[in-house]
Structure formats: structure tokens, C-alpha cells
């Protein structure tokens, strides 16, 4: 069997698995499992965002928590203003809170994209270890800013009293909220797939391998990377918005460097630059957290061991190993 066919089959199994598990949980009346599946979908979405920067652009960002957190706080802040009926601002134009998810998603996408554009414009002037450090520094800036910003809960975070609404659906029903997250994941996977095969994707992918080559044909690698980083940040921001609604709570922890690290782990575990790598990685992460977390508080030790095995012996992550393709790039 062709290796790309095998990858396609793995992708279909992963996606249908993510769909079947909560449906089955619905039948057996197990809402907790649905919540776990929702978490997988949201983390996978955050990973899909990072994978556009990391897999295609070769940009190791340790600051994607910034976008995850911005998406989350966009939802938290808008919801809190809707709760109190106090507008966010009255001048020069009126902005009021809202409880409508689609509006919140747009706000989350736009704000995290803007943040990624600014952070990218500054950090993409560096590369390698310096890029990792600069993105980490930006993430930490947001983290400490939210801790010391009393207007929206500071260190204590901000509660969302009722899950926000989506026209025609009851988002309080776990399966319906899962459905929303699943559909958004599919849409973003589709966008990612189209980008990979686009002229932009081909050029960005080549820029990762040989910057000189891309410049010599007259293309601007910096500009391409900035566009990729912005799209990447926006998708991770959308994931943050959904995460806020899943927990009905946002806190500075969303901005912490551990969050950035976890998003990186999803992608590396599943397989960098593989379309469904983040999904497989996030699913394994949640399963480990659930089952090993029951055995020991220190389950991260096992996660660390697994990560070592993957990085040392299966450089293409789980999908790379299962499809026989190995590292999609070295």
C-alpha cells in the first residue's frame, strides 16, 4: 500500500474515532467522555494552528499560548460585559458585550491574528533558538499582564456564568457543543490542507528547506512566514475561544508557557507537518492524562518518557511511524 494512502486511512480513522466516541458516550449516557472528546477537538485545533507555523514554515514557536489565551479572554471579556450590561467602551463607538459564539469567534480570530502579526513581525527577524526565546518572551508578557490586570479577575481568572449561545443549538448539551468544536476542527483542517497544496504552501515549504533558493526565484521568505504565523495564531486563538466556553472559565494559566509547551507536544507527538498529527497527539495526550492521571499525580513523567521515545525513535511522530513515512521533514 502506498504510504500516502496509509496516511489517509489513519486520518480517516482518527477523525471518525473522534466522532464515534462521543456518539457512543451519548448512547451510554456518559457525558464526561463527551467532554473529554470535546477537549481533544479543541486541543487538536490549537495544534492545527501551530502546525501551520511549525510543520509548513519550520517556525518553532514557544509562544502560542499567547494566542490561545487571547482567544479565551476575548470570550471571557465579552461574556462578562454581556452579564453586567456594561459596554466595553462607549467612545469613539459603542462596543457591547455579547453571548453569541459566532461574534465571539470573529473577535477571537481577529485579535489573535493581530497579535500574531505584531509578534511575528518582530520575532521573525530572528531564527532558530532566538526565535524560540523571543516567542516565549512574548507569551510570558501576556501571562504577567493578565495576572496583574485587575479589571478582569487578575490572578483569579474570570468566570463565564452560562455557556455562550449559538443560534439554533443548545450549547449546554455536551454533544451539541462537541459538534460545534468538531465542525470548526474539520473546517480548519480543510483550510490547512488547502494551504499545504497551494502555491503559497509550496513556496513556504521550500523556504523552510532552503531560504537561498526561495530568494533566488524572487520570493520574500519573511513575508510568507509572517502570513503563515498570522494564520497560525488566529486558528490557535479560535481554539482558545472554544476552550473558554468548554470550561466556562478563563485564567492566566491559558497564557502560561506550559500551555505553549503542551500545544507543541500535541504536534510533535502526533507528527510534525502531518495534517492530522495534532489530532492524534491531542487524543493521546488526553487519554494519558485521563488514565495515568488516575494512577498518579505525576503522570507527566510517563508523558515525558513517551515523548522521548517518539523524538528518539519515531521522528515523524505517531502518524509518521504508523504510515511508514517517517519524518515528513528532518
Amino acid at each position, binding site marked *: 500500500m502506498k504510504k500516502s494512502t496509509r496516511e489517509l486511512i489513519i486520518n480517516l480513522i482518527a477523525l471518525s474515532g473522534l466522532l464515534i466516541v462521543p456518539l457512543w458516550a451519548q448512547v451510554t449516557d456518559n457525558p464526561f467522555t463527551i467532554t473529554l472528546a470535546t477537549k481533544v477537538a479543541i486541543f487538536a485545533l490549537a495544534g492545527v494552528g501551530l502546525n501551520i507555523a511549525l510543520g509548513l514554515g519550520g517556525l518553532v514557536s514557544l509562544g502560542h499560548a499567547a494566542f490561545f489565551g487571547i482567544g479565551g479572554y476575548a470570550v471571557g471579556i465579552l461574556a462578562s460585559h454581556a452579564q453586567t450590561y456594561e459596554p466595553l467602551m462607549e467612545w469613539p463607538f459603542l462596543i457591547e458585550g455579547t453571548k453569541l459564539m459566532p461574534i465571539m469567534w470573529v473577535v477571537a480570530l481577529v485579535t489573535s491574528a493581530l497579535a500574531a502579526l505584531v509578534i511575528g513581525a518582530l520575532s521573525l527577524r530572528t531564527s532558530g533558538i532566538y526565535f524560540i526565546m523571543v516567542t516565549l518572551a512574548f507569551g510570558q508578557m501576556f501571562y504577567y499582564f493578565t495576572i496583574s490586570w485587575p479589571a478582569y479577575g487578575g490572578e483569579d481568572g474570570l468566570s463565564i456564568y452560562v455557556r455562550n449561545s449559538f443560534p439554533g443549538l443548545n450549547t449546554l448539551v455536551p454533544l451539541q457543543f462537541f459538534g460545534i468544536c468538531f465542525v470548526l476542527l474539520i473546517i480548519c483542517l480543510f483550510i490547512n490542507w*488547502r*494551504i499545504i*497544496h*497551494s*502555491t*503559497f*504552501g*509550496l*513556496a513556504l*515549504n*521550500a523556504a523552510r*528547506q*532552503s531560504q*537561498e*533558493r*526561495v*530568494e*533566488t*526565484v*524572487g*520570493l*520574500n521568505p519573511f513575508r*510568507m512566514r509572517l*502570513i503563515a504565523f498570522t494564520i497560525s495564531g488566529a486558528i490557535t486563538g479560535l481554539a482558545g475561544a472554544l476552550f473558554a466556553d468548554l470550561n466556562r472559565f478563563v485564567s492566566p494559566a491559558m497564557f502560561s508557557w506550559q500551555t505553549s509547551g503542551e500545544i507543541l507536544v500535541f504536534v510533535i507527538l502526533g507528527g510534525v507537518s502531518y495534517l492530522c498529527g495534532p489530532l492524534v497527539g491531542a487524543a493521546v495526550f488526553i487519554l494519558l492524562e485521563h488514565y495515568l492521571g488516575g494512577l498518579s499525580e505525576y503522570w507527566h513523567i510517563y508523558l515525558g518518557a513517551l515523548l522521548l521515545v517518539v523524538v528518539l525513535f519515531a521522528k515523524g511522530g505517531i502518524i509518521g511511524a504508523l504510515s511508514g513515512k517517517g519524518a*515528513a*521533514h*528532518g
Partner: protein
Amino acid sequence: MADPILETRKLTKRFGALAANEDVSIDLRSNEIHAIIGPNGAGKSTLIKQICGGLKPDSGDVLISGETVTAHNTQQRSARGLGRTFQISALAMQDSVLENAVLGVIGRLGKRLSLFSNALKNSEFVEPALKALEQAGLEKQLDYKASELSHGERRQLELAIALTLSPKAFIMDEPMAGLGAGGTKQMTEVLSELRFQAPILLVEHDMDAVFALADRISVLVYGRVIACGTVDEIRNDPAVREAYLGNAA
């Protein structure tokens, strides 16, 4: 007389006390192959880098069709018509031969960079790429990864990418290096025809190929052009024989 396609005026580049290039003035005219020869360390690579934009000269200018491009970076010079091939292959090694060539077409059509149009299913990109690969003799290796190609085939791919750019001038850094006898012969035939498509500035160590191909030769020694002329003039120039060719020629 019309402006030369490519011209350098008194290019000078020093690394500390070492003058890698000093007052290098050369030009490239239509339908010619202008070869740059010189012993190792003569400053050929430094010259190429300054022409293509990777290295900023200390003084002097680079002109493309009479327009000064000294302040322009690599990608701007490429957009103005320079098609470069590298001494050490600069390819997207994990991409297929076809993808590498399509990259060149994408570069030429630069402003149409799209997030959604499928690069390999769009004839606007694929057809010029296929044509260039055919001209370079790689039409049978389309699906190979660049990393799977032999050394000689990578040279051909370098050439194919340069062809997709439809440049005004080719800058070729040792296109024969590492090719076998057959490969050198084939490349010589391709380049010989190519000069009528766009002139070629050729840096090459293979003297047989240079003497077979070049309309003019400039000899670079210790960063200076010590002679410039036709093949016969260079062969018989005593300074060149002294400095470079020894008694072998």
C-alpha cells in the same frame, strides 16, 4: 551602443586586509557566454554573490539593463531578471523535482501567490515547469525527491529552475562541477544553445568546457581582472599563462 544586459562597475569587496574583489568591471551582452575563470581564491564566488545580492560591495555598482541595482536584495534582483544556479545545490531537498521547478514559476509569477489555488493542478504553473525540466533533460524524474537525484541531476534541476524564471541573464556558478564526461558534454550542448535565449555569465573550472563555450573570458587573479578577451586572446596572453594556466595550456 545599447546597455549591456548585466554590468559591474569597479566592484570592490574587502574582508579585513584581503581584497576579495578590487575594481572588477565586467559586462554581459546579448547572445554571449562570458566565462569568469581564475585560480581558487581569486574571488569568483565573491563576485557572483555581489552580482546576485547576497553580499554588499564596499564600493562599485551592479547594473541590470542599465539600471543600478546595488541597493536591491536578492529577490528584487531576481525579479529584475537574474537567473542563478548554485555551485552547491540550493534545492528544496524533500520536495519533488516537479515541485522545485514549479517553485521557480511561482517566483516568476510572484504576485499571484495564493493560499488556495492548488499549485500542482494548475497548468499555469505546471506547464512552464515541465517545459523547463524537459529542456534541462529531467522530464523522466518528475516525481523523484531532489534528495534522491544524483549530483549531475541536481545540476540539471538547478538549471531547470533558472529556466522557469525566463531571466534576462543567467549567472551560473560551476554548472559542470561533479558531472561525469557524459554529463559535461550534455550540459555543454544545453548551455551552447541557451546563450541565444539569454546570455550566460559562467564561472567554471572545467577549461575544456570554457574554451568550447565562451565567447569572451575574463581572468580573475587575486580579486582583479587581469585580462578579458576572446578564447584565443586569453590562451595567448602571457600574463594569463604566467598567473593561471601555467605551461599546461
